[in-house]
């Protein structure tokens, strides 16, 4: 899983270079060539496209037109900012929900551990789109949630919940669906496993004796969490937040299927500019900006968190 990437077993010190120093390069060439041609070169092509002028019919020429960036930013900054905010909220929510779940699976689930892990991963294997569409069924005006509330006479809870959401501006009218709330709910749901798995693999390795030692040295359970468990789980937290935040910031499936015109995220804009408006330079510029923001975020975040386990 993606998880192993970031938290995975520390790479064992590679063993002696054997005779035939060419062997590793021969093994690398096909795979790396593929990545260079179809990942690195397209990035260059993207950067170059963003600086060209012209149109689809008459072709493009390189004019080093940086004005595209300024125009793109001034027009689409709300969508860009919204993407980062939604992704940020969803990441915090996945952390808040994923940490207890990962702890539960790692330390309290006994012989159901493997079974629960399978259940966390299993949704991965079902279509992302179909599962996201299911939230329409759940959150809709006469959807599952409303039905359950009605049948169990707990609709006052649902109404209260809606009032709360309205108060913080996550829904605009009485509709749960097609609102910022629905988009964030979908993002949180879709990327939760990406948070749970690295946290789980980190928490599972936690040495229980360290927790006991903290207790022995006068730390209450809350203090033991703050001073021992949390700092030790930071690599898992960092990996999980990155794995959640990055795809969430670029995602637009949730905002299209669960949101409205007022929840448009940057991915949606890039998609539309490329495939419908056919304004390639603007689309490329926005794509490149998103990439730069993500890279800057990853670098500062990893530095701050002080984990070198990544990469």
């Amino acid at each position: 899983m993606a998880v192993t990437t970031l938290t995975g077993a520390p790479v064992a010190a590679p063993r002696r270079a054997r005779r035939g120093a060419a062997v590793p390069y021969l093994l690398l060439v096909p795979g790396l060539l593929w990545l260079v041609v179809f990942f690195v070169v397209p990035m260059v092509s993207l950067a170059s496209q963003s600086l060209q002028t012209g149109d689809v019919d008459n072709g493009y020429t390189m004019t080093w037109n940086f004005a595209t960036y300024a125009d793109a930013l001034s027009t689409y900054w709300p969508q860009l900012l919204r993407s980062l905010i939604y992704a940020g909220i969803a990441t915090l929510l996945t952390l808040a929900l994923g940490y207890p779940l990962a702890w539960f699976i790692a330390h309290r689930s006994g012989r159901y551990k493997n079974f629960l892990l399978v259940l966390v991963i299993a949704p991965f294997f079902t279509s992302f789109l179909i599962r996201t569409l299911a939230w329409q069924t759940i959150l809709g005006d006469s959807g599952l949630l409303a039905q359950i509330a009605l049948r169990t006479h707990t609709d006052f809870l649902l109404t209260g919940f809606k009032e709360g959401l309205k108060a913080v501006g996550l829904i605009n009218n009485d509709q749960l669906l097609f609102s910022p709330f629905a988009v964030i709910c979908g993002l949180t749901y879709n990327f939760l496993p990406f948070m749970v798995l690295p946290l789980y693999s980190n928490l599972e390795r936690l040495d229980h004796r360290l927790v006991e030692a903290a207790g022995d040295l006068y730390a209450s359970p809350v203090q033991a969490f703050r001073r021992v468990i949390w700092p030790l789980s930071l690599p898992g937290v960092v990996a999980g937040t990155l794995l959640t935040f990055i795809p969430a910031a670029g995602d637009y499936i949730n905002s299209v299927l669960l949101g409205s015109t007022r929840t448009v995220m940057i991915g949606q804009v890039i998609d539309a500019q490329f495939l419908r408006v056919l304004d390639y330079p603007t689309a490329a510029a926005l794509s490149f900006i998103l990439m730069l923001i993500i890279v800057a975020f990853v670098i500062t975040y990893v530095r701050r968190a002080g984990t070198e386990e990544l990469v």
Partner: protein
Amino acid sequence: MAGHASGDLVLSGVSRVYDTFTAVDNIDLVIPQGSFFALLGPSGCGKTTTLRMVAGLEQPTAGTISIGDHDITATKPYQRNVNTVFQNYALFPHLDILDNVAFGLRQRGVKDWKPKAMEALELVELAHVAKKKPTQLSGGMQQRVALARAVVNRPDVLLLDEPLGALDLKLRRQMQIELKRIQQEVGLTFVHVTHDQEEAMTMADTIAVMNAGKLQQVGDPGTLYEKPESTFAANFLGQSNLLRATVKGVSAEIASLDVHGIPMTVPAASLPGGASELWLGIRPEKVRIISEGTEAAGLNTLRGEVTDVSFLGVATQYLIAMPWGRELTVVQQNDGMPRAALGSNVCLGWVPANSFVLDASQDADAGAQLVEDE
């Protein structure tokens, strides 16, 4: 809190039962304040469970634990003035050495934690690595950090859970002496759990021998070794030769025994009350190989054939086959006397007061295999 009079650690009627398994079975124990106390027994005997109950990491299913007149049975580990040196040290990998040692002090809001922690590091001679991380230290150094981290809190009782188990032999010997020095310096009550009888005898003032959740015998190392009260203690602490014996007669001073038809004596006072079938025990180094015709009066003597000679350096160990089939182990100091040859017939003798007697209803091999396993 440092140095306040705390009192003895008292366990009364303490048991710990897991589902169907009784790990600790109704233990009564008084550990005097300021003593170096060892809980000795094979793995699985319940000694670590006992320790964890004192630490508060485990709840007894019955009985009470108190320090002085303060009942601590129901308190949480972090509320007890008890600290542990964990088996694999359990040093916090994300904190440096100083922060590890200062953890308990800061947790309790001690203001001058820094000088105190440094002082504790000086006690274990590690002040120079205060800023390093635990993984940068050798096993022996980590062990001393773990000790400093516990000692610095001046607990009423300091618990050591197989603290030297992960060290190699030479380092272990060194640390045994070190630990004893530190205990005498700080004057705290040390409770030391170990399966290594030599370690227990070297360090502790008092040893409690445990087996299968029960206390076998409590006493100072000398008494435990010279006068074991069970075959388990006799075999687990050092080696013993156990000979089947029947009481023939008892006078005021001497009891006469029959060992496979050979008459022997033991001091009458050492007889366990009531039993007429006995194990006569004698430690290998107490048995002498004596030249023909020089048997002194009053010695118990046996004859046998040398079946094995092993040179141990400081001593030589012989296996001598008895006429009834069993082999006796005999250890002779290498004091320059000629060694007995393999296959030769020899005469063995010992002073009756150097032997001990046990009730024959016990298994002669109890505790013997366990020593081999470790």
